[in-house]
Structures are given as C-alpha cells and as structure tokens.
C-alpha cells in the first residue's frame, strides 16, 4: 500500500515537472504578481490531477491544463476586479496560440521548446540582448536599468517593449517557416 502511494506520488511529480513550464508561462500572461500566478498554478495542477480521468487522452494535455487555468483565472477575475489580474479573451487566445506554436517544436522539455525564443534573442543586436539579460536574468527593474543606462525609466520600458515586439515577430516568422 505504501509502495503504491509512493509510486502514485512519483507519477504526480512527473506530471508536475512535465507541465509546469508551459502552464506557468500561460498564467503569467494574465498577472504580473508572482504569488498570484503560483497560487493559480498550484490550483490548476491539483484540480487537473484530481480530474485526470476526465482528460481525453487523444487531446493535448497542455491545452487541457490551460483550459482549467483559464476558468480559474476568469472566476477569480469575476469575484473581484483586481488590477493585478487582467483577464480578457483576446489575451487568452494570443497566449494559447503562442504557447501552442512553441510547443509544436517537438522537444521534450519546456525549456528546449523555448529554444525558438533563445534563437530569436541570439539574433538581437548586442545592446538589446544585454537589456534582456539585465531585465529577465538579473531581474533588474526599469528604474535600476534607467540609472545604469543613463536614460529615463519610461524610455527603458519602451525599449523593452520594442524588443519584445521584435521577439514576437521573430517567433511568428520562425514558426511560420517551420510549418511551411
């Protein structure tokens, strides 16, 4: 019995590890609050585990998880208008499409799938790459970056937004080429 429980728990762990990357990326699209994102992620995973028998094995597991997450996000949004949690259908569609497109790359881990984005980053000019690294790898805020770069925080935000736009275009181009 104990062994059975351990095995069950191990399968749950594999289930979590295999799916956490894509799911969390999807949830983060709707909230910048890391704590809220993690709560929603945990709730989605636990509900999915409990309802695993309802999953149609012919369908996409990650799309099914995103469906559960979407309902949770929508419910949370309905309960109260929280400005940190912005949910709308068009964001959901774009997030779903982008993440699905990245997932078609056929690698076995989420990070490997994100190699499309890595490739796009490597094609950015040096200054843009450094800004991306400083913002996302070193987790420096726009205000901190403004001080070190010598421009206003608003200009840093705009520059980052333009870079993200370039990266989004690059991903679309890349996946467009891949799908022919």
């Amino acid at each position, binding site marked *: 019995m104990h062994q*059975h*429980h351990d*095995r*069950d728990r*191990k*399968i*749950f*762990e*594999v289930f*979590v*590890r295999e799916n*956490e*990357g894509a799911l*969390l*990326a999807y949830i*983060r*699209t709707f909230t*910048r609050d890391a*704590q*809220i994102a*993690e*709560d929603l*992620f*945990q*709730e989605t*995973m*636990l*509900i999915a*585990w*409990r309802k*695993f028998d309802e999953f149609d094995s012919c369908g996409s597991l990650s799309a099914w998880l995103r469906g559960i997450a979407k309902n*949770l996000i929508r419910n*949370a949004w309905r*309960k*109260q208008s*929280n400005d940190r949690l912005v949910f709308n259908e*068009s*964001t959901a569609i*774009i*997030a779903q499409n*982008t*993440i699905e497109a*990245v997932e078609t790359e056929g690698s*076995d*881990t989420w*990070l490997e799938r*994100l*190699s499309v*984005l*890595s490739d796009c*980053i*490597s094609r950015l000019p040096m200054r843009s790459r450094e800004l*991306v*690294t400083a913002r*996302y790898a070193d987790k420096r805020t726009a205000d901190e970056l403004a001080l070190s770069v010598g421009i206003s925080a608003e200009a840093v935000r705009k520059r980052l*937004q333009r870079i*993200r*736009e370039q*990266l*989004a275009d690059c991903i679309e181009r890349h996946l467009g080429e891949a799908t022919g």
Partner: protein
Amino acid sequence: MSEKRGANDKQIHERSDRDAVMDSLLVSLHEQPSEREERVQRLLAKYPQRRGSTRIGTTPMARPQGYATLFRQRTSRVRLVFALATMMLVTCGVYLAVAPPSAQAAFARAATVLNQPVTRVFDVDITTQGVVQEMRELSATLYRQSTERFLLNFENARVNPCIVAGNTQRNWIRFGGRTWLSDEESNEGFPNYTWFDLVAVRQLHFSKLFDELPTDYDLRWLDDAMLPGDSKHLHRIEAIRRHYDATMPRRVVVWIDPDSDVTQQIEVSMHVADFSIIRTFVARFREEVPLDESFFQLESHR
C-alpha cells in the same frame, strides 16, 4: 473615422496582449533552476492524497482575495470510490506503460556487451545550444575499450590532438597538445572554447548510465526502428528521467542491434551550467578495431 479609431484601438489592445505573452515567455526562459525546483517542491508538498478532499492552502497574501479556495469537498462516498478506482487504473496503466520489462532486459544485455574488452569506435557529435550564444558543434571519435579505458579525440578542436580519458573512479584526466589536468584541478589550460566540460565527459560513462536507465527513467520501447540512412532493424528505447537531477541526462535514446546486442547509437541530452544551455551528445557505432592498451596512455599521444 470612428471605425478607423476602433480598428486602431483593437490593434493597440492586441499589441499589448502580445507584449504580455512575450514578457511571460521571457520570464519563464530566464528562470533559475533553483526557483523552478522550489516551486515544484512547494506543489509536491500539497500532493493530494487519494482519500478525501485535499484543501488547497493559499498564501496569506492570496487568501483575502477570495479566489484561492476552488476545491469542493467531496461529500459523496460513491464519487470517492469511483475516483479512487480510476486513479488506481491510471496509476497501473502509466506504470505498465513506462516500464516495459523487455526494455530492461535489452539494456541488461547491451550493458554486458558494452563491458566486453573490445575496442569499438564511435563517431561522436556534440551540439551545444545556449540562450544567447550561437549553436556550436563538435565532431569527435570515441575509442572505447572498456568502462575504464576510452579516448575521445576531437578532430575540429583548436588544440590538436585534444583527447579526454577517464576511469571508473571519476578521476577524469584531460589532455591536449599543450596541457593535461586532473578533475580536481582547475580548468585552466583546457581549451574552454571547445565547450566541453565535465558533464559531457561523464556522459561517456555508458555503463553507469545503463545501470540507471531502468530504475530512474521512464522507458518508451520501440522494437522495430531504423536509423536514418541504415536499413538495419533495431530496438529503439527512449528514456526520460523521472526526477530532476542536474548531473544526469534529461533524455536518452539508445538504439540496440537485437542480433548482436551492440549499442548502435546513443543520444544523450541534458541541461548544463545555468540550465539555459542544452547539450546533446550523439555517439554512433562505426567499427570494432584491435587496439592495444598503449593507445589509451597519455604518452602515446604526446
């Protein structure tokens, strides 16, 4: 006029949505492995027991916002019994699917053959894909006499010959045209620009890897597969690691000849360094050659 403004508003709105998606993907890409691991552990700590209703704990910050309590307590015993039965079926199904006994037997036979004292030559390709760096590829030849004796000779490294040797005690020795160092020493002197490190060297320890494959990996078995450009029918076993271990490969694919039990190809991929670098190691069997022990000595290659 108002239609045009409406279209512009929609475009701006979609742009900001796209921006949010990209922001999220960039955050995911740059996350540290330790952050991911901690998050997984926090969730595993809430592993839902089969019996009854696991309430989801919410963080003190999220609780007052009222959305976190999303699980309903199961009150119906019938539903509980059905849920338990389904979970058990799923568990058994997954367990049987991931651990086919024939794959384990094939590994055992292949490991036995691999340990026989015959020098086999493999063509090796090592590919490294970083986040911001371009992909680098290395070609090499692996001369593997036994678990304890093998040489990896890089044809396209700048230091020529650049050879790596190792033994079972993991006291790896590297030597090239200019220098040689043991593992306990610093990496100074070794041609770092070859993007070759300890992790890649340890992947050459096939026997250890073969020992762990049946126990620590989920195995997917295909008993009639062919390598590209080859008509030979082979066993193909894909192994995905169950629990994250930074020192072990995440994914391994082994191709075994069912007639001779000789490993025809082994593909290993793993994350190295800060988790943002993915290294793939592919060794393809070329031939068996008679080489004496002196070939595996440093002096023979100075």
